[in-house]
């Protein structure tokens, strides 16, 4: 197989199970010296799991790993680090209150003879390291005050400082602005020249193709293809990521969905040039009554933050929001949004439900003021809840059960039921089907369609193409904080969504 030198890192037949569910099945993976290796695949395809095995985070697995031809088995991330493998995780771990220099040398600060930190030496070493990476930064500034891209550089510098020969980057570009991405790529090129190897995980296929020497595609815990990046294109990647579509029970939307023609209903939401710097910019959108708008984007593209801003949870820096032509004063937070007719179901059910309280109280909380101005009327609350529990098929159908004892799908139904008695004008659903089984997903689709039929304006925000395709009449794709493309009245499949994002 290899010509001349043996590969730097080689994995063979690696499998990994989580509680009986296969996350990786018989994966072979090879990383050569001075190579940038791109990994792509949908959420849950196994990329991150494999990298965590390499970085010593997951220690229980089948199969073997060779580093420099030697059989290795890491027992901890520290083992992997000592062997020269460093990982920069998606969630950055710089200490915001410490200076840049302290962060670069975190855990390895040089000490003087008395055991105190040798500040001057530390600054010199940090400067040296950053300059070697072609970065100039104020060493004394607190790291938390810097833009995300620079924080990432600090973390990179820290990992390299520890002597890493193999650098694993998990989704490094998703939160970066274009110039920051550019800088990161220059850095990667430099690392490659110095003989180090990089594994680069990303949803951004253009980025992967630009920066990698080799690309590998994962699907459902298997490696389904590896090729030199030069020889393949985006469509080759997407084809393999999506697969033939027969492997999963659920609909995989390899076939295009035909979006219905635009409807003439009255405009409910008019949002103009909404901006929160660093999250999303100049987002303008309209939603009509009886229309479901899907906003799709990769994780970290800003669509979930846009949902929070429309719900009054995140203050807007610029922009105006009108509901039914009246300006909505979202500065007043969620109560103001509710008054304007906006209801929000966030992606985290924990942020939505009172787990220790019975189902009926979880449903009635949003309409208590309509049931009684001062006094509670539990029998009315129960009756309303029982109606919804029956029509939505919540199982078990007991309104006095603490909602924490229901399954995820049933919890989501309860969260939706909250807005069904007195309908809002605009319903914002953030990741409405995340982590649900097929049956529960179908139920949610049915509920959303029912609401649309009653003339609600609905926006679905998601990073799962299936969710948007199964629910939306019209789709906007958000790319790095910008609404980049619209699909309406035409056939759209997962491939086109992925390509646009």
């Amino acid at each position: 197989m290899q010509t001349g030198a043996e590969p730097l890192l080689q994995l063979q037949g690696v499998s990994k199970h989580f509680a009986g569910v296969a996350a990786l099945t018989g994966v072979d993976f090879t990383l050569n010296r001075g190579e940038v290796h791109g990994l792509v695949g949908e959420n849950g395809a196994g990329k991150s799991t494999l990298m965590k095995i390499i970085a010593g985070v997951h220690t229980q697995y089948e199969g073997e790993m060779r580093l420099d031809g030697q059989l290795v088995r890491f027992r901890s991330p520290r083992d992997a680090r000592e062997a020269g493998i460093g990982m920069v995780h998606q969630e950055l771990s710089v200490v915001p209150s410490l200076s840049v220099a302290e962060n670069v040398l975190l855990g390895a600060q040089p000490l003087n003879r008395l055991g105190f930190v040798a500040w001057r030496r530390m600054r010199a070493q940090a400067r040296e390291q950053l300059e070697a990476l072609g970065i100039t930064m104020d060493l004394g500034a607190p790291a938390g005050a810097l833009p995300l891209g620079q924080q990432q550089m600090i973390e990179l510098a820290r990992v390299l400082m520890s002597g890493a020969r193999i650098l694993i980057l998990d989704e490094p570009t998703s939160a970066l602005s274009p110039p920051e991405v550019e800088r990161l790529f220059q850095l990667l090129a430099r690392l490659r020249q110095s003989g180090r190897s990089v594994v680069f995980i990303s949803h951004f296929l253009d980025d992967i193709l630009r920066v990698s020497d080799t690309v590998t595609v994962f699907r459902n815990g298997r490696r389904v293809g590896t090729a030199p990046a030069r020889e393949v294109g985006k469509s080759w990647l997407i084809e393999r990521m999506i697969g033939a579509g027969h492997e999963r029970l659920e609909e995989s939307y390899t076939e295009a969905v035909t979006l219905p023609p635009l409807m003439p209903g009255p405009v409910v939401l008019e949002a103009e040039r909404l901006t929160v710097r660093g999250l999303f910019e100049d987002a303008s959108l309209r939603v009509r009554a009886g229309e479901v708008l899907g906003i799709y984007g990769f994780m970290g593209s800003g669509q979930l933050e846009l949902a929070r801003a429309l719900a009054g949870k995140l203050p807007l820096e610029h922009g105006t929001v009108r509901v039914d032509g009246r300006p909505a004063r979202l500065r007043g937070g969620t109560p103001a949004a509710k008054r304007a007719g906006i209801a929000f179901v966030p992606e985290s059910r924990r942020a939505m439900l009172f787990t220790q309280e019975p189902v009926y109280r979880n449903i009635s909380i949003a309409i208590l003021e309509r049931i009684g101005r001062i006094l509670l009327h539990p029998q009315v609350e129960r009756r309303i809840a029982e109606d919804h529990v029956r029509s939505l098929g919540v199982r078990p159908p007991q309104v006095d059960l603490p909602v924490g004892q229901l399954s995820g799908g049933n919890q989501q139904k309860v969260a939706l039921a909250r807005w069904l008695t007195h309908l809002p004008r605009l319903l914002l659903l953030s990741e409405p089907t995340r982590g649900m089984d097929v049956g529960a997903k179908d139920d949610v689709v049915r509920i959303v369609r029912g609401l649309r039929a009653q003339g609600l304006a609905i926006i679905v925000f998601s990073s799962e193409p299936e969710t948007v395709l199964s629910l939306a009449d019209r789709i906007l794709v958000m790319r790095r904080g910008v609404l980049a493309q619209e699909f309406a009245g035409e056939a759209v499949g997962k491939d086109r969504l992925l390509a646009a994002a």
Partner: protein
Amino acid sequence: MSAPLTERTPLREPLWQRLGGQLRNLAPFATLLALVALFSALSPSFPTMANLANILQQVSITAIIAVGLTYVILCAEIDLSVASVANATGILLAFLTVQDASVNIANLPLPGPLAILVALLGCLALGAVTAFGVTRIGIPSFIMTLAMLQIANGIAALLVRGQIAYNVPEAIVTLGSGSLGPVPWIVVVAALVLLLGHLVLAYTRFGRYVYMVGGNREAAEHSGVSVKAVVGAVLVISALCSGLAGMLGVAYFGSAQQNQFDNYLLDAISAVVVGGTSLFGGQGGIGNTIVGLLVLGVLNNGLDHIRMDSFLKILIRGLVLLLALVINVYAQRLRNRRRSAG
């Protein structure tokens, strides 16, 4: 019928698990029964009607303060200023009442009802300042009420300047130290405040919001509940209860002076927590607080009846509070485990 049959109806939980889930409510009650049995066995003077009246009278002021504090703790906040606000309000009331010539205070006598009204407005104002600091400025209630503790102490100190005042309006004298037949008025007032506190918590929309804000603040916000308004309101309610307790306390003690309420901060917090209201918010209620008040009252009173060394008494109270905290945290953990298993 179309839904998948993979979800099973939860089986009826075994008895011990159901009891475990009720640990928060059962443990304080069991403690109360055990203490009553213990002291009755050790001292013949303990289990008498006269002594029961004693105990009730002894916990009345704590009870009034504890009602407001129950609201605050249910919201997962804390109010450390209750005793100081009580002190300041009591002293303000005395300051607004004609004192004997021997009392050397540059006071500002008002007609009785007006003095009571102004004193109540005074404690409401203190509560409003606390509420503003916590909800508008965003100071954690622990620190904000610590500042309010000092501020209220300072107001009290400035008003009496080390003196002792004795007179308060007639109505307050009656409520604080008079009797309605055999029952002291202060017990009646405490019972009414407890009852009102319970009714509001259990039967009004506001009461439900208090539980929901304490149970999951973010979810309450997402449901369109104005969390800030609820938190601000409970802090004002707490100040109002403290002020009422402070006015009655002056009549009960027969004098108004600096620091006379100092013990009530710990007593009131202990009563709420010993009763089983969750320190993490969202669970408990006035019923729990009543049991907590009785546990503390019986313990204090009973230890006197068996002639416990009064210095050892302090230590024992500390240990009881520690035990209650352990149970409180443990009950929460049990609940969390059940929740994640469900």
